[in-house]
C-alpha cells in the first residue's frame, strides 16, 4: 500500500452541531486569553467577588468581628438584596467589564471587516444568527462568569455558612433577580461592544471607543450635573443607567430620584439601535461586492 502524493479525499461525515456557533466562540475565547494583558485584567475583575465572599463569611461570624463594627459598618455585612446589587452593579465591576471588552471584544467584528473574513464565514453553512451569536457568546462568557456565576455562588456560600435557608425564605425572588439582571448586563455589553466593533475596521480604534464612550458618558453626566443639578441628567451616563436598573431588579431604592424605567428605556433604545446597526452592517457585507 502506498500513499500517493497529491490531493486525497476526506471520507468522513459531516455532523449536525447542536451549537453551530460554538467553534466561533471557542476560537475567540482562545484568542482573548492569549493576549498578554488580558489575563491579569480578567483575574483582577474577580477581586470584588473574593472580598464579597469574605464579607459573607464575616456576616455569619459577626460576633467574632465585633471590632470591625463601627456603627454604620454593620450594614455592609448584612446579606440582603442590596448586598447583591452592590456586587453586580458596582462601579468597579462595570468598569472592569468595559476593560475586558477592550481586550477581548474590540476585534470581534472589526477584524472580520478589516481582513475581509465575513465572506469566508458565510460561504459555510452558517446562519447570520449563528455568526452573531457566536461572537456575542464570547462576551456573554465573560459577563456571566463575573456576574451570575459569582452571585449564585454567594447564595450557596451564604446558605452553607448560615446553615439554613433564611436568605431564600426572606427573598425568594433573589436568584431570579440575579439571573435577570445578569442577562440584562450581558445583553447590554454584547450589543455595546459589538456595535462599537462594527463602527471601525481598526480594532485599536474600537478599543479606544469602548473605553472612551463609557467613561465619557459618565463624565458628561457629571459635567452637566455640575451646572444644572438636575437628577435626570443621569440618563446620559451608561453606568448610572445600569445602576438604576439594578436597583429595581433588587428591590432597592435607586441612588437618584429618577424612575428606573427611564434608565431601562434609554438602555433599551440603545440596545435596539445597536442591534439594528449590527444587522445592517452584516447584511451589507454578506452580499459580496
Amino acid at each position, binding site marked *: 500500500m502506498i500513499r500517493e502524493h497529491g490531493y486525497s479525499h476526506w471520507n*468522513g461525515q*459531516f455532523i449536525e452541531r447542536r451549537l*453551530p456557533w460554538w467553534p466561533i466562540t471557542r476560537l475567540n475565547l482562545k484568542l482573548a486569553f492569549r493576549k498578554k494583558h488580558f489575563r491579569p485584567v480578567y483575574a483582577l475583575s474577580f477581586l470584588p467577588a473574593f472580598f464579597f465572599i469574605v464579607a459573607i463569611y464575616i456576616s455569619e461570624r459577626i460576633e467574632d468581628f465585633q471590632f470591625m463594627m463601627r456603627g454604620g459598618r454593620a450594614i455592609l455585612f448584612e446579606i440582603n438584596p442590596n448586598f447583591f446589587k452592590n456586587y453586580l452593579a458596582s462601579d468597579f465591576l462595570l468598569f472592569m467589564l468595559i476593560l475586558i471588552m477592550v481586550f477581548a471584544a474590540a476585534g470581534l467584528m472589526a477584524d472580520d471587516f478589516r481582513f475581509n473574513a465575513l465572506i469566508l464565514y458565510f460561504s*459555510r453553512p452558517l446562519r447570520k444568527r449563528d455568526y452573531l451569536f457566536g461572537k456575542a457568546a464570547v462576551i456573554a462568557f465573560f459577563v456571566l462568569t463575573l456576574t451570575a456565576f459569582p452571585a449564585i455562588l454567594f447564595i450557596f456560600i451564604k446558605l452553607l455558612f448560615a446553615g439554613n435557608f433564611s436568605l431564600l425564605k426572606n427573598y425568594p425572588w433573589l436568584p431570579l433577580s440575579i439571573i435577570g439582571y445578569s442577562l440584562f448586563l450581558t445583553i447590554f455589553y454584547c450589543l455595546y461592544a459589538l456595535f462599537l466593533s462594527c463602527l471601525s475596521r481598526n480594532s485599536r480604534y474600537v478599543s479606544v471607543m469602548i473605553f472612551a464612550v463609557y467613561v465619557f458618558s459618565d463624565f458628561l453626566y457629571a459635567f452637566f450635573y455640575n451646572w444644572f443639578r438636575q437628577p435626570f441628567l443621569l440618563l446620559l451616563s451608561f453606568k448610572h443607567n445600569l445602576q438604576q436598573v439594578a436597583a429595581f431588579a433588587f428591590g432597592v431604592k435607586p441612588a437618584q430620584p429618577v424612575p428606573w424605567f427611564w434608565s431601562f428605556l434609554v438602555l433599551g433604545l440603545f440596545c435596539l439601535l445597536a442591534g439594528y446597526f449590527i444587522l445592517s452592517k452584516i447584511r451589507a457585507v454578506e452580499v459580496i461586492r
Partner: protein
Amino acid sequence: MKVEVSHLHFSYGSIKALDDVSLSLEGGATGLLGPNGAGKTTLIKILLGFLRPERGEGRVLGYDILHEPRKIRQLVGYMPEDDCFLPGMDAVTFTAFFGELAGMPRQEAMKRAHEVLFYVGLGEARYRLLETYSAGMRQRLKLAQALVHDPKLLFLDEPTSNLDPQGRMEILELIKDLANGKDIQILLSSHILSDIEMVCKHVIILNRGKVVAQGKIKDLKAMNFRLYELKIKGEREKWLAELAARGCQFEVTEDGLIRLYLPAEINPKEIFIAAFKAGVQIRHFKPSESTLEDFFARAVGVD
C-alpha cells in the same frame, strides 16, 4: 450534472445583471469569462445562495439553490478574489476552524487541515502566524480553506491576482492538478485568458447578463486547416517566392511570424520541401487557430 441553472433573472435595481441565464457545468474545469459587469460575480453569488434570483431555478450538486443554500455551501469550496484571513492565529487553526464551521467534527477538521496545507505547499509554514504570510502564501491559504471540507465543487475567483510570475505558475499547477483529479469540479472565474486556457477544458462567456457562448475550448478555437503560422531561420525571400508562384499567399508580421495560406491542391509537405531546397530552417510550424481572446472578442461583439 453538478450544476444546472435555468432561466435565471436578477436585477440590481434597474440594472439587469442576469437575463435568462441557463447553463449546466460539465465535468472538469470550466472557465467563466466576461467583461466587468457581465454578471459573473452575480452568478456565483446566486449559486452560493447569497442572492435570490427574481425568476428561475437551479440545482447545485442536486440541491435547490433557492431552498437549500446551506447544504450547497457545505459541499462547495469558495476561494474569494479578495485577500481574506483572520489575524492572530496560524494556518492550521485557521483552516481547521473553517473546516469545523463547514460541519466537520473538530478532530477531523484538524487532521484534514494539516493534509490540505501540505497539499497546497504550506506544510512548512503551517504553524506560523498568518500576518507573516506573503501574498502567494495567502492565496494558497485561501485555496486550503476552500478544500478543507473536501468539496465536490470549487469556485475560484481570480486565483492568481496579485501574484508574481512564480506564484501564478504554482497556483495554476495546483489547480490543474485538482482539475485532473476528476473528482472535483472547478469553476474558474478569471480575467486572464491564458490561465483559463491552461487549466480549463470548457468555458462559459457572459456578457451583459446573458450567456453568449459556452463549450469546449478546443472546439471554440476555430481551426483553419489551410492557414499555417511559421517561424524560420534563414533567408526567406526565395522560398516565399517559390511558394507564391505555386499559389500560396502569405503575410509577415513585425515579429517575423509568417502566416501562410495554402491552396487546396498543395500538400503541406511541399512547404518543407521548398524550404529544404532554399536552405531555410523551419523552426515553428502550426496550423493556425484563433486564440481564445479572438473568440472572446467576437462573442462579446466587439470590433
